[in-house]
């Protein structure tokens, strides 16, 4: 069987998946706190090709000896190994709405360290998000746009008593005389987080270490860090890769066609 058939097909599948990541990024180019996915392509594990043949030993009986010769390693295709969110800080955009809050990264002790708001999802589990597009629900609690409670440092919902409140740069929410500290979590290796949709991340978080710096801005939103121009360019590149693989597949098909119709044909 022609091995390249599958190699070309795997190339097409991988490029399709790549496109999915890119188009999702483009779709979320306006989502506050969205972190663009970067796909990584990887070849299938290498395998060793061996040539099997036989060698004729010139004796009176005409002995044949089997001979195996190593040809070399080969890959038989490519796949999207993973999609890694790019945790680079997004630009800030002023909205003037007091329930919009943006996190601004300072310096962190770990290379892949990052900070998040903590929220409680519908199952009561603690999740992380960078989308600071909050609102105040009917009961006066600070919630995300999905209605998930934004948590304070003790993992309790935050009562604002209406939407008139002030948040200081270090994350203390002042509503009337009540002071609540927003629950900001630190993740030492943000790559280990799993995206769950609705802007939520799931993973192990810890308290913000003493040597990490950050700032909180009220009335601002962190824009999506998707660069649409770059996405479009990558998309075109990926499209052409897809097309190239399709051409290869067609070429294989033609060879197969020849094999079927022409080999063994009596003139």
């Amino acid at each position, binding site marked *: 069987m022609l091995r390249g058939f599958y190699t070309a097909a795997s190339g*097409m599948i991988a490029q*399709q*998946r790549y*496109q*999915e*990541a*890119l*188009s*999702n990024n*483009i*779709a*979320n*180019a*306006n*989502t*506050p706190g*969205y972190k663009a*996915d970067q796909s990584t392509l990887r070849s299938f*594990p290498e395998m060793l090709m061996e040539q099997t043949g036989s060698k004729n030993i010139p004796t009176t009986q005409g002995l044949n000896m089997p001979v195996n010769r190593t040809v070399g390693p080969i890959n038989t295709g490519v*796949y*999207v*190994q*993973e*999609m*890694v969110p790019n945790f680079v800080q997004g630009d800030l955009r002023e*909205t*003037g*709405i007091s*329930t*919009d809050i943006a996190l601004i990264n300072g310096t962190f002790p770990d290379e892949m360290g990052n900070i998040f708001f903590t929220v409680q999802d519908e199952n009561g589990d603690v999740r992380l998000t960078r*989308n600071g*597009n909050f*609102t*105040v629900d*009917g*009961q*006066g609690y600070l919630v*995300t*746009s*999905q209605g998930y409670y934004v948590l304070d440092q003790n993992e309790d919902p935050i009562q604002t*008593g*209406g*939407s008139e409140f002030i948040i200081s740069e270090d994350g203390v929410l002042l509503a009337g005389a009540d002071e609540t500290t927003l629950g900001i979590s630190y993740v030492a290796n943000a*790559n*280990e987080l*799993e*995206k769950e*949709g*609705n*802007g939520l991340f799931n993973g192990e978080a810890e308290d913000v270490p003493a040597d990490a710096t950050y700032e909180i801005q009220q009335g601002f939103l962190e824009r999506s860090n998707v660069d*649409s121009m770059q996405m*479009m360019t990558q*998309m*075109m590149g990926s*499209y052409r890769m897809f*097309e190239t693989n*399709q051409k290869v*597949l*067609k070429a294989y*098909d033609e060879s197969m066609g020849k094999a079927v119709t022409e080999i063994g044909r009596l003139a």
Partner: protein
Amino acid sequence: MSRSMIQAAVTMNQLQQKLDVIGNNLANSQTTGYKSRQAEFSSLLTQEINNMTRPVEAEERLTPDGIRVGSGARLGSIMNDFSVGSISETGRALDVALQEKNHFFKIQVAENGTTETMYTRDGAFYLQPLENSDNVMLVTKVGYPVLGEAGPIIIEDGFEYIDIRENGEILIRRDNQTETAGVLSIVEAEYPQILEASGENIFRLPNLAELGYTLDEVMDDVNAHYGLLKIGALERSNVDISKEMTDLLMAQRSYQMNARTITMGDQMMGLINQLR
């Protein structure tokens, strides 16, 4: 249909709604007391796909197993921006502007046979003659009675002069005598985000019992004091046209970008189709 096309189609639909919100803001950029709305996006569900689960394949991975593909974006919230609009002088005696944020006039709206108290910041008032009587009533532009501290403000005919004071008092002059015809009732919304826009520049309250509130908790009466109102002036819409235009352009470009995604997805399908 491929996943990338679905993502883009879903998002385009939501972008369309954002365009609607922006369009509405632009249309109301000259509406007295209009509060602009802002639509913000939120990402949609993420699907986890298992792929290549053998340990060999997990080598050099940065992220947990599987790959997570999102499914587009949706409008997360549409919020009212309750900041005060600029105040422009009109010189008209019955034009009243509220100077403080979250303050509202109370009006009485009769809908489907029931009367409900609603709220507005549009202070362009008029006097409307009442049926079968010589009296006039203070009403809004649309004709809803404006509520004073003692219900609708009805003034007997035959006065020479009407004057609204900065503390909401309505003075009329009749036969060289000044008398008070009523006091405008002004409330402050404690939880402005629960107010629902109900058209004609009016806000209404949702079902408070469901939210576990009483009316007093949500709407505070504001004590009449000087500086509460500005007379002979109207509050302009708080829509910032340049910001809306920028948003409009960005939403439009996003829309095009997503449309391109669909085209590209379609072309890829075409390529697959041409395989044989």
